[in-house]
């Protein structure tokens, strides 16, 4: 480059930027029709379904009440339950067996819920 290295910005930077950043281009002939086609497609698409807050609110309320009840019950048990004895492995095992029993049901419920969600998504996708 033959530019004077001592004065790389010898001319006004403002003018040089104005010149360098200038550059007019004209949209291609089909630009308007392409935009209008995409606008028409967009206008023809139904708006996304709004979340049914009115229907969901009672369920949310019930869930909140259940969580509160469970929390209160937990606090109650922590406060008034007798401290566990240090050497009572049999009692511990019995408790463990009792608590493990519903795990199978829990796993089954989760699997059914997962299958329901997958089925709904698939049906919605095929629509």
């Amino acid at each position: 480059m033959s530019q004077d290295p001592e004065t790389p910005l010898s001319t006004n930077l403002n003018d040089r930027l104005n010149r360098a950043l200038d550059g007019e281009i004209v949209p291609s002939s089909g630009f308007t029709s392409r935009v209008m086609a995409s606008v028409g497609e967009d206008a023809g698409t139904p708006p996304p379904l709004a979340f049914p807050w009115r229907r969901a609110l009672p369920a949310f309320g019930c869930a909140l009440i259940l969580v509160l009840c469970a929390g209160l019950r937990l606090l109650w048990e922590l406060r008034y339950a007798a401290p566990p004895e240090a050497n009572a492995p049999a009692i511990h095992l019995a408790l463990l067996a009792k608590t493990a029993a519903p795990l199978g049901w829990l796993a089954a419920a989760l699997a059914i819920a997962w299958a329901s969600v997958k089925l709904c998504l698939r049906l919605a996708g095929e629509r």
Partner: protein
Amino acid sequence: MTAAEETQTRPSDEAADHGQAAADGACVDRILAGDSSAFEEIVRRWQGPLMNLAYRFCRDRGRAEEMAQEAFLRAFRALASWRRESAFSTWLFALAINVYRTELRRIPVFAPLDSVPEPADPRASHTFEVQAQAAEDRALRRAVATLPEKYREAVILYYFHEMDLGGAARSLNLPEGTLKARLFRGRELLRKKLAGKHAHPRRASHQGDI
């Protein structure tokens, strides 16, 4: 550049602007009433400015068209949010800049700006001076492209609005003082970048800048 030069605004034809604003408002009314074909008038009126603005950000004609098309589509979807407190053009430019910003964050401009063919300049001849000037312009554009986003936007919008500080500030939704500060800082960074480039002419020439 002096502060006085910074704040100078380009004289504009207010009557024409007012007429255009009224036409834009009427089009928007029709679209909101359900006549989506009225949007074509808006597209025809603003396709040039929106595409040229996109081109200044990416220096790629094809990509500029895609970005402008996306900006128009977003504008169509968001027409109801135009509060008419500002001109339609101000709202449209602000929306387009947001679209362009998002798009350029998603896919930054990686292509060397030098490789992009420039629009034909009728004055151009293959003289040494013209080639040198073109190389200098490319180096400057490359330097602008490497500025941090907020300075790059300030510089591009200021010159896009033909050095109208108020117009650029409205498009960027910034106070004029903030834009002025960003312009000042952006120019300082450019000076440093270009000075560094000229301090290492051999390395610069290896990069194909000059």
